């Protein structure tokens, strides 16, 4: 239990900063919604004059585009980007920092197995991610409520917001996996930033991969448009994610248990 509390303490300040940034971003973007919806009528007319092919290319469905949830769908990319960096940092750093700080051999002299050690660290990281999401969700719902005067579908808004933690979990496990595979990570951000931004850019260049891009980058894995339309998250993708996370986590345990840990000199 000591390790768990220690990790929470270690990451306390950075988690607060991440939570505040996420809240600030959602607050800022959503507060633009009134400005944006002011032009509704003109934009609607322009859109309706477009050929269907163009509308499809832009991924615009007129009926949802002007609702708060439709607006949220477009800004959510940047929320995901920020949250993913946080999660990737946690994943890459939480175990590898012991090696970088030369505290691994100290930790391993304690009467716990490596498996227990990893479990506690993962539990601490999950706690931090859950706390982040709870605070974020509260801030997002509050802002959405204020700017739209309660005129939005809360369930769907919450469902879209929940994909944040789902994407974060993917980046967290990928980060953990990298920290298990790479020989020695000296600086966490030099691994996590390229990782997240590579996937971010793949997501932005989506049309070259067509529909398959969903399987290539966590950023496109959950389709908010589907959530808006159907009111649920696609079960198939939840299942894929669950399988992915289980396999990778098992691999992480296996690799860390066998890994050569260099002692501090």
């Amino acid at each position, binding site marked *: 239990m000591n390790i768990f509390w220690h990790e929470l303490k270690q990451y306390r300040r*950075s988690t607060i*900063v991440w939570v505040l940034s996420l809240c600030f*971003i959602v607050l*800022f*973007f959503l507060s*633009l919604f009134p*400005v*944006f919806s002011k*032009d509704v009528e*003109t*934009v609607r007319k*322009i859109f309706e*004059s*477009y050929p269907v*092919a*163009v509308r499809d*290319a*832009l991924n*615009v469905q007129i009926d949802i585009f002007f609702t708060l949830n439709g*607006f949220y769908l*477009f*800004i959510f990319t*940047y929320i995901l980007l*920020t949250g993913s*960096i946080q999660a990737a*940092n946690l994943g890459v750093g939480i175990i590898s920092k012991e090696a*970088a700080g030369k505290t691994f051999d100290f930790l391993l002299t304690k009467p716990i197995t490596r498996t227990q050690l990893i479990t506690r660290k993962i539990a601490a990281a999950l706690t931090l991610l859950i706390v982040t999401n709870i605070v974020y969700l509260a801030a997002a719902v509050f802002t959405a409520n204020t700017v739209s005067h309660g005129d939005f579908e809360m369930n769907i808004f919450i469902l879209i917001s929940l994909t944040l933690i789902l994407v974060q979990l993917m980046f967290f496990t990928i980060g953990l996996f990298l920290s298990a595979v790479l020989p020695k990570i*000296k*600086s*966490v*951000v*030099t691994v996590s*930033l*390229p990782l997240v*931004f*590579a996937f971010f*850019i793949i997501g*932005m*260049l989506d*049309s*070259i991969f067509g529909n398959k891009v969903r399987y290539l980058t966590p950023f496109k894995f959950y389709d908010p448009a589907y959530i808006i339309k159907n009111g649920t998250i696609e079960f198939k993708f939840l299942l894929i994610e669950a399988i992915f996370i289980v396999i990778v986590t098992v691999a992480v345990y296996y690799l860390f248990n066998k890994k050569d840990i260099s002692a501090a000199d």
Partner: protein
Amino acid sequence: MNVFIRELKVNRYPLLAWSVGVVLLIYSGMLKFAGYQSSGQSINQILDQLPKSVQAILGLNVGIDLSSAKGFYAILFFYIILVATIHSSLLGAGIISKEERDRTSEFLFVKPIPRAKVLTAKLLAAFCNILVLNLVTLVSSVCLVAIYNKGASATHDIILLMAGMFFLQLIFLSLGAAIAGISIKPKGSASIASAILLFTFLLSIFIDFYSKLENLKYLTPFKYFDAKSVLTSGKLDPFYLVLSAIIAVVLVATTYLFYTKRDLDV
């Protein structure tokens, strides 16, 4: 001289990886462009009527013709500078702070060279790295665009944009170096540098969303050499060139000032 050569050597594989990344990015961008070009529909005029905020939401860059290679490259440029600035800020912070992080600073500074000289060698090595990345981007852009482009040549515009990107790289390199130079706990310098990078990146998107924030554009280098204005005016805005140069010089001077004086974290 030894420090310089050693830094070049240490950084050659990371540099290679970043170069490959940039080339892949440009290549995949051009594949996408080939799709646009062959579909033959220029949707730009109709899109131009949309309010700016809506265009920003849809990720369109106002007034750029996507069906020309030049216009398409302008969109791609946004992602290229993202990659290049991440590289330079991590490099700048890392190259200074790694001695303390890896506990090699005592070893390094018992050598008969003053700190300022070490710093110069390191900064020069970092400078070479960003220069190489810039040239790789330039050459691969020119070649890949030429392969897929059926319209007017875009070489001149690419050179111009790459010159702008070089200034951005300089800013973020010196920013990373300055943070590592100032901070007493240099381990966190790469995180701080990337936090600033993320903040300025998001700020540039905020400005796109909400034109009343236009005045904040001085705060984010991502707005200094906006592809659209560079391409329409045909030159880099001299004001921002000077501003970037001043920022870079001030940051480098700060690095020297603090790093030569502060206690090393041993």
